[in-house]
Protein backbone atom coordinates (compact mmCIF):
# COMPACT_ATOMS: atom_id res chain seq x y z
CA UNK A 1 0.00 0.00 0.00
CA UNK A 2 2.78 2.45 0.84
CA UNK A 3 4.81 1.22 -2.06
CA UNK A 4 3.73 4.04 -4.35
CA UNK A 5 4.73 6.84 -2.03
CA UNK A 6 8.25 5.55 -1.61
CA UNK A 7 9.01 4.60 -5.22
CA UNK A 8 10.63 1.32 -4.29
CA UNK A 9 12.47 -0.74 -6.81
CA UNK A 10 12.87 -3.91 -4.84
CA UNK A 11 10.06 -6.34 -4.14
CA UNK A 12 10.30 -9.41 -1.98
CA UNK A 13 7.32 -11.72 -1.83
CA UNK A 14 7.25 -13.71 1.40
CA UNK A 15 3.57 -14.60 1.53
CA UNK A 16 3.50 -17.91 -0.34
CA UNK A 17 1.15 -19.29 2.28
CA UNK A 18 -1.45 -16.89 0.88
CA UNK A 19 -0.75 -17.68 -2.74
CA UNK A 20 2.13 -18.18 -5.17
CA UNK A 21 3.09 -16.86 -8.60
CA UNK A 22 2.09 -19.18 -11.44
CA UNK A 23 5.09 -20.70 -13.18
CA UNK A 24 5.72 -19.57 -16.76
CA UNK A 25 5.66 -23.20 -17.91
CA UNK A 26 2.30 -23.63 -16.22
CA UNK A 27 0.87 -20.61 -18.02
CA UNK A 28 2.22 -21.96 -21.27
CA UNK A 29 0.63 -25.36 -20.69
CA UNK A 30 -2.73 -23.73 -19.93
CA UNK A 31 -2.82 -21.34 -22.88
CA UNK A 32 -4.18 -23.65 -25.63
CA UNK A 33 -7.10 -24.66 -23.43
CA UNK A 34 -8.55 -21.16 -23.58
CA UNK A 35 -8.44 -20.95 -27.36
CA UNK A 36 -8.04 -23.82 -29.84
CA UNK A 37 -8.64 -26.54 -27.23
CA UNK A 38 -11.66 -24.92 -25.66
CA UNK A 39 -13.98 -27.93 -25.76
CA UNK A 40 -16.33 -29.18 -23.06
CA UNK A 41 -15.05 -32.47 -21.66
CA UNK A 42 -18.60 -33.86 -21.64
CA UNK A 43 -19.07 -33.37 -25.41
CA UNK A 44 -18.91 -36.45 -27.61
CA UNK A 45 -17.26 -34.75 -30.61
CA UNK A 46 -13.58 -34.25 -31.24
CA UNK A 47 -13.47 -30.89 -29.40
CA UNK A 48 -14.80 -32.67 -26.33
CA UNK A 49 -12.34 -35.50 -26.75
CA UNK A 50 -9.35 -33.12 -26.68
CA UNK A 51 -10.59 -31.59 -23.43
CA UNK A 52 -11.44 -35.03 -22.00
CA UNK A 53 -7.97 -36.34 -22.76
CA UNK A 54 -6.36 -33.37 -21.04
CA UNK A 55 -8.68 -33.81 -18.06
CA UNK A 56 -7.87 -37.48 -17.63
CA UNK A 57 -4.14 -37.00 -18.20
CA UNK A 58 -4.14 -34.31 -15.49
CA UNK A 59 -6.06 -36.56 -13.13
CA UNK A 60 -3.38 -39.21 -13.58
CA UNK A 61 -0.66 -36.73 -12.67
CA UNK A 62 -2.39 -35.62 -9.44
CA UNK A 63 -3.05 -39.27 -8.54
CA UNK A 64 0.57 -40.20 -9.27
CA UNK A 65 1.87 -37.55 -6.87
CA UNK A 66 0.12 -39.16 -3.87
CA UNK A 67 0.27 -42.72 -5.22
CA UNK A 68 -3.50 -42.88 -5.63
CA UNK A 69 -5.57 -44.42 -8.41
CA UNK A 70 -6.82 -42.18 -11.16
CA UNK A 71 -10.47 -42.66 -10.21
CA UNK A 72 -9.77 -41.59 -6.63
CA UNK A 73 -9.22 -37.95 -7.65
CA UNK A 74 -11.92 -35.42 -8.41
CA UNK A 75 -11.31 -31.82 -9.36
CA UNK A 76 -12.93 -28.97 -7.41
CA UNK A 77 -12.64 -25.20 -7.33
CA UNK A 78 -9.95 -25.33 -4.64
CA UNK A 79 -9.11 -26.21 -1.08
CA UNK A 80 -12.19 -24.61 0.45
CA UNK A 81 -14.59 -26.55 -1.74
CA UNK A 82 -12.68 -29.79 -1.20
CA UNK A 83 -12.92 -29.33 2.57
CA UNK A 84 -16.63 -28.59 2.36
CA UNK A 85 -17.31 -31.57 0.13
CA UNK A 86 -15.24 -33.98 2.20
CA UNK A 87 -16.85 -33.06 5.52
CA UNK A 88 -20.45 -32.49 4.47
CA UNK A 89 -20.24 -35.28 1.93
CA UNK A 90 -19.25 -37.86 4.54
CA UNK A 91 -21.66 -36.72 7.23
CA UNK A 92 -24.70 -36.46 4.99
CA UNK A 93 -23.93 -39.85 3.43
CA UNK A 94 -23.70 -41.54 6.81
CA UNK A 95 -27.03 -41.39 8.59
CA UNK A 96 -26.10 -43.61 11.55
CA UNK A 97 -23.23 -41.53 12.82
CA UNK A 98 -23.38 -37.90 13.85
CA UNK A 99 -20.04 -36.93 15.36
CA UNK A 100 -17.00 -35.18 13.85
CA UNK A 101 -13.61 -34.67 15.43
CA UNK A 102 -11.39 -31.85 14.26
CA UNK A 103 -8.81 -29.51 15.79
CA UNK A 104 -8.84 -25.90 16.95
CA UNK A 105 -6.21 -24.85 14.43
CA UNK A 106 -7.92 -25.87 11.18
CA UNK A 107 -8.35 -23.50 8.27
CA UNK A 108 -11.69 -21.63 8.35
CA UNK A 109 -12.89 -23.78 5.44
CA UNK A 110 -12.91 -26.73 7.86
CA UNK A 111 -13.79 -24.88 11.06
CA UNK A 112 -16.75 -23.00 9.61
CA UNK A 113 -18.01 -26.10 7.84
CA UNK A 114 -17.98 -27.91 11.19
CA UNK A 115 -19.60 -24.98 12.96
CA UNK A 116 -22.35 -24.92 10.36
CA UNK A 117 -22.96 -28.62 11.02
CA UNK A 118 -23.28 -28.15 14.78
CA UNK A 119 -26.98 -27.82 14.18
CA UNK A 120 -27.64 -31.56 13.84
CA UNK A 121 -24.19 -33.03 14.41
CA UNK A 122 -21.85 -32.90 17.37
CA UNK A 123 -18.32 -31.63 16.87
CA UNK A 124 -15.23 -32.09 19.03
CA UNK A 125 -12.55 -29.44 18.54
CA UNK A 126 -9.31 -30.89 19.85
CA UNK A 127 -6.75 -28.69 21.61
CA UNK A 128 -3.18 -28.58 20.40
CA UNK A 129 0.00 -28.30 22.47
CA UNK A 130 2.31 -25.29 22.57
CA UNK A 131 4.03 -26.51 19.42
CA UNK A 132 0.71 -26.88 17.59
CA UNK A 133 0.45 -30.68 17.62
CA UNK A 134 -2.76 -32.56 18.30
CA UNK A 135 -2.57 -34.90 21.30
CA UNK A 136 -3.05 -38.34 19.78
CA UNK A 137 -4.25 -39.86 23.03
CA UNK A 138 -6.94 -37.20 23.33
CA UNK A 139 -7.91 -37.88 19.75
CA UNK A 140 -8.35 -41.57 20.42
CA UNK A 141 -10.32 -40.86 23.58
CA UNK A 142 -12.65 -38.54 21.69
CA UNK A 143 -13.70 -41.25 19.24
CA UNK A 144 -17.09 -42.83 20.01
CA UNK A 145 -19.21 -45.28 18.06
CA UNK A 146 -21.08 -42.23 16.74
CA UNK A 147 -17.94 -40.72 15.18
CA UNK A 148 -18.18 -40.58 11.41
CA UNK A 149 -15.13 -38.51 10.57
CA UNK A 150 -11.85 -37.19 11.88
CA UNK A 151 -10.66 -34.09 10.01
CA UNK A 152 -7.16 -32.98 10.99
CA UNK A 153 -5.04 -30.83 8.70
CA UNK A 154 -1.67 -32.02 7.45
CA UNK A 155 0.29 -28.74 7.68
CA UNK A 156 -1.05 -25.60 9.29
CA UNK A 157 -1.23 -22.46 7.17
CA UNK A 158 -0.21 -20.04 9.93
CA UNK A 159 2.48 -21.79 11.95
CA UNK A 160 3.45 -24.54 9.51
CA UNK A 161 3.18 -27.36 12.05
CA UNK A 162 2.92 -30.79 10.42
CA UNK A 163 0.65 -33.29 12.16
CA UNK A 164 1.51 -36.96 12.45
CA UNK A 165 -1.07 -38.10 9.90
CA UNK A 166 0.41 -41.59 9.78
CA UNK A 167 -0.49 -42.25 13.41
CA UNK A 168 -3.80 -40.40 13.12
CA UNK A 169 -4.61 -42.66 10.18
CA UNK A 170 -3.77 -45.76 12.24
CA UNK A 171 -6.00 -44.60 15.09
CA UNK A 172 -8.87 -43.94 12.69
CA UNK A 173 -8.45 -47.34 11.09
CA UNK A 174 -8.42 -49.08 14.46
CA UNK A 175 -11.76 -47.46 15.32
CA UNK A 176 -13.25 -47.74 11.86
CA UNK A 177 -13.62 -43.97 11.45
CA UNK A 178 -13.02 -42.07 8.22
CA UNK A 179 -10.03 -39.74 8.13
CA UNK A 180 -9.88 -36.50 6.12
CA UNK A 181 -6.83 -34.28 5.96
CA UNK A 182 -6.48 -30.78 4.53
CA UNK A 183 -3.13 -31.00 2.74
CA UNK A 184 -3.46 -27.67 0.92
CA UNK A 185 -0.30 -26.22 2.46
CA UNK A 186 1.78 -29.39 2.46
CA UNK A 187 1.02 -30.71 -1.01
CA UNK A 188 4.29 -31.29 -2.94
CA UNK A 189 6.25 -30.07 0.12
CA UNK A 190 5.68 -33.05 2.39
CA UNK A 191 5.26 -36.38 0.57
CA UNK A 192 2.00 -38.29 0.98
CA UNK A 193 1.60 -41.89 -0.14
CA UNK A 194 -1.98 -43.08 0.25
CA UNK A 195 -0.93 -46.71 -0.09
CA UNK A 196 1.50 -46.31 2.77
CA UNK A 197 -0.66 -44.38 5.24
CA UNK A 198 -4.35 -44.72 6.01
CA UNK A 199 -6.26 -41.68 4.82
CA UNK A 200 -9.68 -41.58 3.18
CA UNK A 201 -9.96 -38.00 1.95
CA UNK A 202 -7.33 -35.38 1.11
CA UNK A 203 -7.97 -31.75 0.12
CA UNK A 204 -5.55 -30.20 -2.36
CA UNK A 205 -5.26 -26.76 -3.92
CA UNK A 206 -3.28 -25.55 -6.91
CA UNK A 207 -2.50 -21.92 -6.11
CA UNK A 208 -0.29 -22.64 -3.09
CA UNK A 209 2.19 -24.50 -5.30
CA UNK A 210 2.63 -22.25 -8.33
CA UNK A 211 -0.51 -23.35 -10.14
CA UNK A 212 -3.51 -21.18 -10.99
CA UNK A 213 -6.16 -20.08 -8.49
CA UNK A 214 -9.66 -21.51 -8.34
CA UNK A 215 -8.70 -25.11 -8.92
CA UNK A 216 -8.11 -27.94 -6.50
CA UNK A 217 -8.81 -31.60 -5.96
CA UNK A 218 -10.17 -34.07 -3.48
CA UNK A 219 -8.71 -37.52 -3.07
CA UNK A 220 -11.49 -39.97 -2.18
CA UNK A 221 -10.31 -43.45 -1.34
CA UNK A 222 -12.18 -46.12 -3.29
CA UNK A 223 -15.27 -47.25 -1.43
CA UNK A 224 -15.69 -44.06 0.60
CA UNK A 225 -19.30 -42.94 0.52
CA UNK A 226 -19.84 -39.28 -0.15
CA UNK A 227 -22.98 -37.25 -0.79
CA UNK A 228 -22.78 -34.87 -3.74
CA UNK A 229 -22.95 -31.25 -2.55
CA UNK A 230 -23.25 -29.42 -5.85
CA UNK A 231 -26.20 -30.69 -7.87
CA UNK A 232 -26.40 -30.66 -11.65
CA UNK A 233 -24.52 -32.65 -14.27
CA UNK A 234 -22.71 -35.91 -13.73
CA UNK A 235 -19.15 -34.61 -13.85
CA UNK A 236 -16.34 -35.80 -11.59
CA UNK A 237 -17.60 -39.28 -10.67
CA UNK A 238 -21.02 -37.70 -10.30
CA UNK A 239 -19.78 -36.02 -7.13
CA UNK A 240 -19.41 -32.48 -8.34
CA UNK A 241 -21.62 -30.92 -11.01
CA UNK A 242 -20.16 -28.26 -13.28
CA UNK A 243 -18.24 -28.07 -16.56
CA UNK A 244 -14.63 -28.80 -15.71
CA UNK A 245 -12.15 -25.93 -15.64
CA UNK A 246 -9.81 -27.61 -18.12
CA UNK A 247 -7.23 -24.85 -18.40
CA UNK A 248 -7.01 -24.66 -14.60
CA UNK A 249 -6.81 -28.42 -14.29
CA UNK A 250 -4.02 -28.63 -16.88
CA UNK A 251 -2.15 -25.86 -15.07
CA UNK A 252 -2.58 -27.59 -11.72
CA UNK A 253 -1.17 -30.84 -13.14
CA UNK A 254 1.75 -29.01 -14.75
CA UNK A 255 2.58 -27.34 -11.43
CA UNK A 256 2.56 -30.75 -9.75
CA UNK A 257 4.97 -32.09 -12.37
CA UNK A 258 7.30 -29.15 -11.82
CA UNK A 259 7.38 -29.41 -8.02
CA UNK A 260 10.68 -30.79 -6.82
CA UNK A 261 12.37 -31.92 -3.64
CA UNK A 262 15.28 -29.63 -4.45
CA UNK A 263 13.01 -26.65 -3.96
CA UNK A 264 11.93 -28.03 -0.62
CA UNK A 265 15.54 -28.44 0.53
CA UNK A 266 16.41 -24.95 -0.69
CA UNK A 267 13.48 -23.31 1.11
CA UNK A 268 14.25 -25.22 4.26
CA UNK A 269 17.83 -24.02 4.31
CA UNK A 270 16.80 -20.40 3.82
CA UNK A 271 14.10 -20.81 6.45
CA UNK A 272 16.50 -22.15 9.07
CA UNK A 273 19.04 -19.40 8.56
CA UNK A 274 16.33 -16.76 8.66
CA UNK A 275 14.81 -18.10 11.89
CA UNK A 276 18.21 -18.36 13.56
CA UNK A 277 19.19 -14.85 12.55
CA UNK A 278 15.98 -13.29 13.84
CA UNK A 279 16.00 -15.14 17.15
CA UNK A 280 19.66 -14.33 17.68
CA UNK A 281 19.86 -10.74 16.52
CA UNK A 282 16.47 -9.27 17.43
CA UNK A 283 15.68 -9.38 21.15
CA UNK A 284 12.32 -10.49 22.57
CA UNK A 285 11.35 -12.66 19.64
CA UNK A 286 9.86 -16.15 19.73
CA UNK A 287 9.15 -18.70 17.06
CA UNK A 288 5.49 -19.68 16.96
CA UNK A 289 4.90 -23.37 16.34
CA UNK A 290 7.36 -26.20 16.91
CA UNK A 291 10.64 -26.13 15.08
CA UNK A 292 10.92 -29.82 14.19
CA UNK A 293 7.63 -30.75 12.57
CA UNK A 294 7.48 -27.65 10.45
CA UNK A 295 6.73 -26.85 6.83
CA UNK A 296 9.88 -26.08 4.82
CA UNK A 297 8.74 -22.54 4.02
CA UNK A 298 7.08 -21.30 7.22
CA UNK A 299 8.54 -18.74 9.62
CA UNK A 300 6.13 -17.33 12.20
CA UNK A 301 7.66 -15.01 14.78
CA UNK A 302 6.27 -12.87 17.58
CA UNK A 303 8.01 -9.54 17.95
CA UNK A 304 7.07 -8.59 21.47
CA UNK A 305 5.78 -5.11 22.39
CA UNK A 306 4.69 -4.22 18.86
CA UNK A 307 1.60 -4.75 16.79
CA UNK A 308 1.72 -6.72 13.57
CA UNK A 309 -0.18 -4.38 11.28
CA UNK A 310 2.36 -1.63 11.83
CA UNK A 311 5.24 -3.99 11.16
CA UNK A 312 3.54 -5.40 8.08
CA UNK A 313 2.98 -1.91 6.65
CA UNK A 314 6.55 -0.84 7.35
CA UNK A 315 7.82 -3.90 5.48
CA UNK A 316 5.30 -3.28 2.72
CA UNK A 317 6.73 0.21 2.33
CA UNK A 318 10.02 -1.49 1.48
CA UNK A 319 8.36 -3.83 -0.98
CA UNK A 320 8.37 -6.81 1.39
CA UNK A 321 5.13 -8.78 1.54
CA UNK A 322 4.29 -10.75 4.72
CA UNK A 323 1.18 -11.46 6.77
CA UNK A 324 0.20 -11.18 10.43
CA UNK A 325 -1.96 -12.85 13.05
CA UNK A 326 -2.74 -9.54 14.72
CA UNK A 327 -6.29 -8.74 15.77
CA UNK A 328 -5.90 -5.25 14.37
CA UNK A 329 -5.78 -6.56 10.81
CA UNK A 330 -8.73 -8.92 11.09
CA UNK A 331 -12.23 -7.73 10.30
CA UNK A 332 -13.41 -9.12 13.64
CA UNK A 333 -10.58 -7.56 15.68
CA UNK A 334 -9.91 -11.04 17.05
CA UNK A 335 -6.36 -12.37 17.01
CA UNK A 336 -5.54 -15.54 15.09
CA UNK A 337 -7.38 -18.59 16.46
CA UNK A 338 -4.27 -20.65 15.74
CA UNK A 339 -1.97 -18.47 17.84
CA UNK A 340 -4.47 -18.43 20.70
CA UNK A 341 -4.80 -22.23 20.44
CA UNK A 342 -1.04 -22.70 20.95
CA UNK A 343 -1.35 -20.58 24.09
CA UNK A 344 -0.13 -17.17 23.01
CA UNK A 345 -1.31 -14.20 25.06
CA UNK A 346 -3.36 -11.67 23.10
CA UNK A 347 -0.57 -9.11 23.05
CA UNK A 348 1.89 -11.70 21.73
CA UNK A 349 -0.50 -12.81 19.02
CA UNK A 350 -0.65 -9.11 18.08
CA UNK A 351 3.03 -9.03 17.27
CA UNK A 352 3.11 -12.21 15.17
CA UNK A 353 4.38 -12.00 11.61
CA UNK A 354 4.26 -14.87 9.14
CA UNK A 355 6.91 -15.12 6.44
CA UNK A 356 6.21 -17.91 3.96
CA UNK A 357 9.00 -18.60 1.51
CA UNK A 358 8.83 -19.75 -2.07
CA UNK A 359 11.19 -21.47 -4.43
CA UNK A 360 12.09 -18.18 -6.11
CA UNK A 361 13.30 -16.50 -2.91
CA UNK A 362 17.04 -15.97 -2.49
CA UNK A 363 19.45 -15.47 0.40
CA UNK A 364 19.95 -11.92 -0.75
CA UNK A 365 16.22 -11.22 -0.49
CA UNK A 366 16.13 -12.59 3.02
CA UNK A 367 19.16 -10.53 4.03
CA UNK A 368 17.42 -7.42 2.71
CA UNK A 369 14.24 -8.41 4.55
CA UNK A 370 16.17 -8.93 7.75
CA UNK A 371 17.74 -5.47 7.59
CA UNK A 372 14.40 -3.75 7.01
CA UNK A 373 12.74 -5.90 9.64
CA UNK A 374 15.30 -5.06 12.26
CA UNK A 375 14.94 -1.36 11.56
CA UNK A 376 11.13 -1.44 11.64
CA UNK A 377 11.06 -3.43 14.88
CA UNK A 378 13.43 -0.94 16.45
CA UNK A 379 11.35 2.04 15.35
CA UNK A 380 8.05 0.56 16.48
CA UNK A 381 9.47 -0.49 19.82
CA UNK A 382 10.77 3.01 20.36
CA UNK A 383 7.19 4.27 20.38
CA UNK A 384 5.66 1.36 22.29
CA UNK A 385 4.67 1.82 25.94
CA UNK A 386 5.24 -1.92 26.47
CA UNK A 387 8.89 -2.00 25.43
CA UNK A 388 11.49 -1.71 28.16
Amino acid at each position, binding site marked *: *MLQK*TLKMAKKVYLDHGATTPVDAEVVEAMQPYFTEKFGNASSIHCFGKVARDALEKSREIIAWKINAEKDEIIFTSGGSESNNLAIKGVLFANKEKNHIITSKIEHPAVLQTCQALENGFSVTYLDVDAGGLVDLKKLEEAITDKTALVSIMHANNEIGVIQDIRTIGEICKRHNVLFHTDAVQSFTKVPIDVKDINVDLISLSSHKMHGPKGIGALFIKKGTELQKQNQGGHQELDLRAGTENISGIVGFAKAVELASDDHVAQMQELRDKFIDKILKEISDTTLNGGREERLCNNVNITFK*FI*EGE*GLLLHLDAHGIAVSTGSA*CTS*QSLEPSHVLLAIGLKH*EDAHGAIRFTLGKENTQEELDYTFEKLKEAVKNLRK*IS*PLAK
Partner: protein
Amino acid sequence: MSYVDQYSEKVKEHFMHPKNMGHIKEEDLQPGEELARGEVGNPACGDLMTIFLKIKDRKIIDAKIKTFGCAAAIACSSITTEMVVGLTIDKARKLTKNQVADELEGLPPLKLHCSNLAVDALNKALDNYEQGIGVVRK
Protein backbone atom coordinates in the same frame (compact mmCIF):
# COMPACT_ATOMS: atom_id res chain seq x y z
CA MET B 1 -11.69 -4.25 -0.35
CA SER B 2 -9.30 -4.33 2.54
CA TYR B 3 -9.65 -1.57 5.13
CA VAL B 4 -5.96 -0.82 4.45
CA ASP B 5 -6.95 0.59 1.07
CA GLN B 6 -9.06 3.11 2.97
CA TYR B 7 -6.13 4.62 4.85
CA SER B 8 -5.80 8.22 3.71
CA GLU B 9 -2.49 9.76 2.65
CA LYS B 10 -2.50 11.66 5.92
CA VAL B 11 -2.89 8.47 7.95
CA LYS B 12 -0.01 6.89 6.04
CA GLU B 13 2.16 9.95 6.52
CA HIS B 14 1.54 10.09 10.28
CA PHE B 15 2.00 6.36 10.63
CA MET B 16 5.28 6.25 8.73
CA HIS B 17 6.61 9.40 10.37
CA PRO B 18 4.79 9.78 13.67
CA LYS B 19 5.28 13.05 15.55
CA ASN B 20 5.86 13.52 19.27
CA MET B 21 6.58 9.90 20.04
CA GLY B 22 8.18 9.18 23.38
CA HIS B 23 7.74 10.53 26.88
CA ILE B 24 8.29 13.67 28.90
CA LYS B 25 10.46 13.27 31.97
CA GLU B 26 10.56 15.25 35.16
CA GLU B 27 13.96 16.67 34.15
CA ASP B 28 12.36 18.20 31.06
CA LEU B 29 10.30 20.59 33.19
CA GLN B 30 11.16 24.27 33.78
CA PRO B 31 9.98 26.11 36.89
CA GLY B 32 6.22 26.72 36.71
CA GLU B 33 5.62 23.75 34.41
CA GLU B 34 3.63 20.66 35.28
CA LEU B 35 3.56 17.15 33.88
CA ALA B 36 0.39 15.05 33.60
CA ARG B 37 0.05 11.53 32.29
CA GLY B 38 -2.81 9.40 31.02
CA GLU B 39 -2.87 5.77 30.05
CA VAL B 40 -5.72 3.86 28.41
CA GLY B 41 -6.20 0.43 26.94
CA ASN B 42 -8.37 -0.44 23.99
CA PRO B 43 -11.03 -2.94 25.01
CA ALA B 44 -11.73 -3.90 21.41
CA CYS B 45 -8.31 -5.29 20.71
CA GLY B 46 -6.18 -4.98 23.81
CA ASP B 47 -3.91 -2.12 22.80
CA LEU B 48 -2.29 0.56 24.91
CA MET B 49 -1.56 4.29 24.76
CA THR B 50 0.25 6.55 27.21
CA ILE B 51 0.15 10.32 26.73
CA PHE B 52 2.34 12.88 28.50
CA LEU B 53 1.34 16.56 28.72
CA LYS B 54 3.51 19.48 29.75
CA ILE B 55 1.24 22.17 31.19
CA LYS B 56 1.88 25.78 32.11
CA ASP B 57 -0.75 28.26 33.24
CA ARG B 58 -3.48 25.76 32.31
CA LYS B 59 -2.17 25.57 28.79
CA ILE B 60 -0.67 22.49 27.09
CA ILE B 61 2.78 23.48 25.92
CA ASP B 62 4.09 20.08 24.89
CA ALA B 63 2.72 16.57 24.32
CA LYS B 64 4.33 13.20 23.78
CA ILE B 65 2.79 9.78 23.36
CA LYS B 66 3.64 6.08 23.31
CA THR B 67 1.46 3.66 21.42
CA PHE B 68 1.08 -0.07 21.10
CA GLY B 69 -1.46 -0.49 18.36
CA CYS B 70 -2.19 -0.53 14.67
CA ALA B 71 -1.19 2.02 12.04
CA ALA B 72 -4.41 3.98 12.66
CA ALA B 73 -3.73 4.08 16.39
CA ILE B 74 -0.22 5.37 15.76
CA ALA B 75 -1.48 8.00 13.29
CA CYS B 76 -4.20 9.11 15.76
CA SER B 77 -1.62 9.39 18.52
CA SER B 78 0.62 11.48 16.37
CA ILE B 79 -2.07 13.89 15.17
CA THR B 80 -3.70 14.22 18.58
CA THR B 81 -0.46 15.42 20.13
CA GLU B 82 -0.09 17.95 17.32
CA MET B 83 -3.67 19.16 17.78
CA VAL B 84 -3.50 19.74 21.53
CA VAL B 85 -0.24 21.62 21.82
CA GLY B 86 -1.10 25.29 22.36
CA LEU B 87 -4.62 24.60 23.60
CA THR B 88 -5.86 25.54 27.06
CA ILE B 89 -7.04 22.63 29.16
CA ASP B 90 -10.65 23.67 28.63
CA LYS B 91 -10.22 23.79 24.85
CA ALA B 92 -8.37 20.46 24.83
CA ARG B 93 -11.30 18.93 26.71
CA LYS B 94 -13.53 19.71 23.76
CA LEU B 95 -11.43 17.77 21.26
CA THR B 96 -13.52 14.90 19.86
CA LYS B 97 -12.65 11.66 18.16
CA ASN B 98 -14.43 12.93 15.06
CA GLN B 99 -12.14 15.94 14.90
CA VAL B 100 -9.16 13.60 15.14
CA ALA B 101 -10.52 11.38 12.39
CA ASP B 102 -11.37 14.43 10.24
CA GLU B 103 -7.89 15.85 10.68
CA LEU B 104 -6.57 12.52 9.34
CA GLU B 105 -8.88 12.86 6.31
CA GLY B 106 -11.01 10.04 7.63
CA LEU B 107 -10.47 6.55 9.01
CA PRO B 108 -11.77 3.18 7.81
CA PRO B 109 -14.96 2.36 9.79
CA LEU B 110 -13.23 -0.65 11.32
CA LYS B 111 -10.56 1.63 12.73
CA LEU B 112 -12.70 4.43 14.16
CA HIS B 113 -12.26 3.05 17.67
CA CYS B 114 -8.53 3.70 17.40
CA SER B 115 -9.23 7.44 17.35
CA ASN B 116 -11.27 7.04 20.55
CA LEU B 117 -8.18 5.72 22.17
CA ALA B 118 -6.08 8.84 21.60
CA VAL B 119 -8.85 11.17 22.79
CA ASP B 120 -9.51 8.91 25.77
CA ALA B 121 -5.83 9.03 26.71
CA LEU B 122 -5.89 12.82 26.46
CA ASN B 123 -8.97 13.09 28.67
CA LYS B 124 -7.50 10.64 31.13
CA ALA B 125 -4.39 12.81 31.43
CA LEU B 126 -6.53 15.91 31.93
CA ASP B 127 -8.63 14.14 34.58
CA ASN B 128 -5.44 13.09 36.33
CA TYR B 129 -4.23 16.66 36.12
CA GLU B 130 -7.40 18.13 37.63
CA GLN B 131 -7.43 15.51 40.38
CA GLY B 132 -3.72 15.83 41.00
CA ILE B 133 -3.10 12.15 40.28
CA GLY B 134 0.53 11.53 39.45
CA VAL B 135 1.09 15.18 38.51
CA VAL B 136 4.69 16.37 38.70
CA ARG B 137 5.31 20.08 39.38
CA LYS B 138 8.44 22.17 39.25
